[in-house]
């Protein structure tokens, strides 16, 4: 019974929270550029408007992949709040991205295809680091279960500081923020138009946007797991990290994917690996 209530609350309120986070993000970005910026609820207006647009689809399968992406994102958030297995969560989350990639490659637009290919390279870069994070948590807590990880005595961050840094770094890629916004650009008048989302319009784009909201909430949750006692502190720190991401987004220009791949392998992977080897030697 409690589970069902949790599910309903999560499915209904997580997107709202995600929308507000995105709205504040846009507002803060505007302030950095000494503008006033859009209203905080602007992302919700955007999605409502997109829902009201004419339905135009390139092919019939497109919408299925978009829905798949959304469903897997919701599922991974549910796995998180229901304190299920962390490894399964990571794989379900990967499914969500893969679904979007397949959707983007199902059309013939070169922009969409390039975006999709870059997204695949991104997955290649960040997925090992996320898995190493889960492995690190397992080494500390002795469990892959999110419930046991959250209830673990003491601060996970103290044991996994380098993994945390690597995860924050990887999050920039996952959130598609600058300098790694090259699979779908925020500013659609560059080499790649809108990349991954170029060929999605109206309802489909609205669903993709909602998927982002769920993901934003999930990432806040994943970050706060490092500081689970007390939880509010974890959430505050997670929001702080998100704020740093926004700053980074504003001060960086886009890099190339080659640079990203090299840097992630060298920095992200080795940070996480160092931490895990250290843990391994300690226990």
């Amino acid at each position, binding site marked *: 019974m409690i589970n069902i209530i949790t599910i309903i609350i999560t499915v209904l309120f997580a997107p709202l929270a995600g929308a507000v986070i995105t709205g504040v993000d846009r507002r803060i970005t505007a302030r950095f550029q000494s*503008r006033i910026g*859009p209203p905080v609820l*602007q992302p919700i207006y955007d999605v*409502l408007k997109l829902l009201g647009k*004419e339905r135009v689809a390139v092919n019939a399968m497109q919408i299925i992949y978009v829905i798949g992406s959304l469903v897997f994102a919701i599922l991974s958030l549910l796995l998180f709040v229901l304190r299920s297995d962390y490894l399964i969560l990571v794989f379900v989350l990967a499914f969500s991205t893969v679904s979007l990639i397949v959707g983007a490659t199902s059309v013939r637009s070169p922009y969409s295809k390039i975006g999709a290919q870059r997204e695949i390279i991104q997955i290649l870069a960040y997925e090992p680091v996320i898995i190493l994070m889960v492995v690190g948590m397992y080494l500390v807590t002795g469990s892959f279960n999110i419930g046991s990880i959250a209830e673990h005595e003491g601060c996970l961050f103290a044991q996994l500081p380098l993994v945390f840094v690597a995860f924050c770094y990887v999050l920039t890629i996952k959130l598609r923020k600058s300098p790694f916004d090259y699979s779908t650009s925020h500013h659609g*008048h560059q080499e790649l*138009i*809108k990349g991954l*989302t*170029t060929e999605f319009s109206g309802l489909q784009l609205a669903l993709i946007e909602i998927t982002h909201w769920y993901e934003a909430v999930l990432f806040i949750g994943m970050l706060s797991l490092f500081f689970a006692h007390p939880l509010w502190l974890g959430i505050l720190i997670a929001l702080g990290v998100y704020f740093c991401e926004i700053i980074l987004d504003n001060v960086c220009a886009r890099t190339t994917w080659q640079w990203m791949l090299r840097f992630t392998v060298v920095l992200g992977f080795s940070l996480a690996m160092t931490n895990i080897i250290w843990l391994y030697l300690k226990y």
Partner: protein
Amino acid sequence: MKLIQKAAGKSPWIIHYDCNSCNGCDIEILASLTPIYDAERFGVVNVGNPKHADILIVSGSVNYRSRRVLENIWREMPGPKVVIAVGACACTGGIFSDCYNIIGGVDKVLPVDIYVPGCAPKPEAILDAVVRATEKLVHKREELAARQAEHVAKLRAKDPKGGRNAEKQ
């Protein structure tokens, strides 16, 4: 439904196409997106992708070359959509109207909703046009909804059992 109706005017995403302009108008259009005028206050995003855009801002007169591209962009935009002609050239052909290669203003090719006269118009005037375009967008969204409802009703009348299919079409 009401909310969707309202939101139609709250997030005007624009795409800007330079038909044959001398670049004066384009600079003013981009100026209206800079921090000084901050068009994002109204939810304006310069999306650069016709499939995401609601407002097509055209600068410059239409010539035989740019006509095809202009029409193509317009066709790729899902409705409700609004066309704004910025500058004397886009309104009537302006100073170039007598050239051998010029067809004329944008309204020779597309249904223009809002004209912004001036050579080049001030960013304030362009912003004003965008804000007026949002009202038009709400209006057009209502029309679209009505048309869709009518279409569904017609299909229902033809085939009473295929209600769900009708809605999809």
